[in-house]
């Protein structure tokens, strides 16, 4: 008997075979509603939003449903409806997302230039041309304030997540309730809290570290809850395996449980940073925005991107609004770079990539 491996034939996926008739019907069923919608929009001049909701969606449902009925009988209709709705809603979300990013690119690109990234705003008036000044000071301020806040919150948040999953303490329910309450805390209240505790009492002037403190209660619930969820996904058998080998619970956690939850924990930190990086209100109450660069978190004013955007939009001049858009674009790019870096650093080792299916 011949046991040599055989080449994979073209028909090795018998389940994916679609007949020509079905394909023609499906394409026709999708093109027809799009053609009707285009006609209604371009020729009849109906508002495109109305066309999408009242023409495209219903005609798609009807025509794909009919195709489904022809191909599969009655059970093809709900299938078709589900497929249409899934694609339609998916496309809807994509359009929303792309339009947000697009409008940011469009409006922010005008202000963007190398000098806009690295210069600060000293001696620049709001009506000056876009070739003067930049948001360099605000980028540094945001990195410093959010960085310090992350340094404070990550140990607290991780410890809370570990407390909630790895211990059997009776206080866990109470801590969960508090975290939920914190997650619902309006960010301006967090700012007011720091303002009234440190600034009103005269303990400190406006300063960057107060802004970092004001962001802590906003970041903490996200980090601890996501950490908790990712640790919960680690199977109990792994913990037992480690403890059964005579590991202390400390080592079992750091060498077995935590590595298994690593990507979830990185996600927790990223979500926490994302939660606060655009926060404006707490910073307005705790950090005095200035036009110059300040590297000292302990004293003096400090610009951050969100407060920069807030101030320059409020000024209302054409150039100042353009600067605000530019700063918003810079903020988005900054977050993108930070997330990309974090994902790169925490990527699974080649160990996982080589995973062989048997």
């Amino acid at each position: 008997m011949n046991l040599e491996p055989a080449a994979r034939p073209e028909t090795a996926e018998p389940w994916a075979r679609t007949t020509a008739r079905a394909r023609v019907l499906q394409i026709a069923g999708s093109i027809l509603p799009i053609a009707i919608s285009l006609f209604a929009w371009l020729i009849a001049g109906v508002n495109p939003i109305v066309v999408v909701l009242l023409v495209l969606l219903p005609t798609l449902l009807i025509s794909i449903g009919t195709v489904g009925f022809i191909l599969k009988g009655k059970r093809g209709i709900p299938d078709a409806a589900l497929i249409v709705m899934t694609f339609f809603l998916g496309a809807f979300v994509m359009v929303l997302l792309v339009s947000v990013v697009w409008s940011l690119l469009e409006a922010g690109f005008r202000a963007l230039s190398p000098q806009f990234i690295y210069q600060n705003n000293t001696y620049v008036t709001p009506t000056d041309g876009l070739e003067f000044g930049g948001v360099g000071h605000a980028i540094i301020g945001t990195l410093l304030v959010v960085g310090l806040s992350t340094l404070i919150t990550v140990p607290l948040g991780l410890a809370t997540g570990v407390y909630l999953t790895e211990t059997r303490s009776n206080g866990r329910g109470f801590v969960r309730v508090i975290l939920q309450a914190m997650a619902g805390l309006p960010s301006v209240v967090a700012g007011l809290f720091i303002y009234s505790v440190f600034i009103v009492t005269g303990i400190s002037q406006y300063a960057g570290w107060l802004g970092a403190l004001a962001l802590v209660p906003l970041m903490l619930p996200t980090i601890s809850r996501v950490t908790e969820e990712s640790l919960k996904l680690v199977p109990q058998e792994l913990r037992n395996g480690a403890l059964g080998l005579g590991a202390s619970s400390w080592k079992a956690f750091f060498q077995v449980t935590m590595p298994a939850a690593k990507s979830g924990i990185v996600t927790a930190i990223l979500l926490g940073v994302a939660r606060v990086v655009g926060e404006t209100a707490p910073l307005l109450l705790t950090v005095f925005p200035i036009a110059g660069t300040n590297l000292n978190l302990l004293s003096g004013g400090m610009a951050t991107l969100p407060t920069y955007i807030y101030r320059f939009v409020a000024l209302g001049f054409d150039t100042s609004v353009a600067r605000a858009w530019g700063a918003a674009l810079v903020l988005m790019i900054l977050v993108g770079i930070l997330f990309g870096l974090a994902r790169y650093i925490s990527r699974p080792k080649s160990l996982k990539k080589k995973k062989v299916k048997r």
Partner: protein
Amino acid sequence: MMSKSKDQTFHLEAKDINVWFGERHVLKDVNLQFPSNQVTALIGPSGCGKSTFIRTLNRMHELIPTAGLAGSVLLDGEDIYDNAVDPSQVRLKVGMVFQKPNPFPTMSIKENVISGLRLSGRKSEISDELVEDCLKRASIWNEAKDRLDEPALSLSGGQQQRLCIARSLAMNPDVILMDEPCSALDPGSTRRIEETILELKATMSIVIVTHNMQQAQRVADKTAFFLADDNQPGYVVEFGDTQQIFNQPVDARTNDYVNGHFG
């Protein structure tokens, strides 16, 4: 390694073990002695407390919330439940292989073998010879030798279970507890693990929970039959040499069980 020549003393001995989960009494007055260099099988229908009992032998039991226990477990004459005893020290001497293979997914095959030494801070004992020796004794060396740096999860289920055995062997334990180690495995892997068990008993004692009567007869020197009546705590009906339990059981219920009449 400690000497295993103490013929008269039992290596591991459970005395008057009673177990509760919450208010529920699940094991009553279990007294068993596990002789050195012998394999002891624990058999009995599901829910009779075998797995619970085996977990009391290396203090894994107390990791379950609401767990309670009375009685003592003597390892070479010392009570492992004594206040002065650190549970992780007990687990170093009494290793465990679980029902479901649980290699550490973030580690390679080799790292899994030495994980116990790392976890217990005995890094100085780590060597390639040790890895090879443990994998050989767990009879997985031939399948694993060319892929020691591949992730442990790339192994098949039966190989993963043998890797878990190798992982326990690296700790050089005095006793290995096995909780239905073959329940998720095919007959071929089961046979390999049984061969491994028979080789291992030269250097350690083994306690194995099994639902497979043939397996108990193939590997075990001693057999204990557990039983639990409805809503009553489990207890040991009969304990003795495997041949006697299967061929001339004293108790009628043992006879019924080993001949497949219930359970």
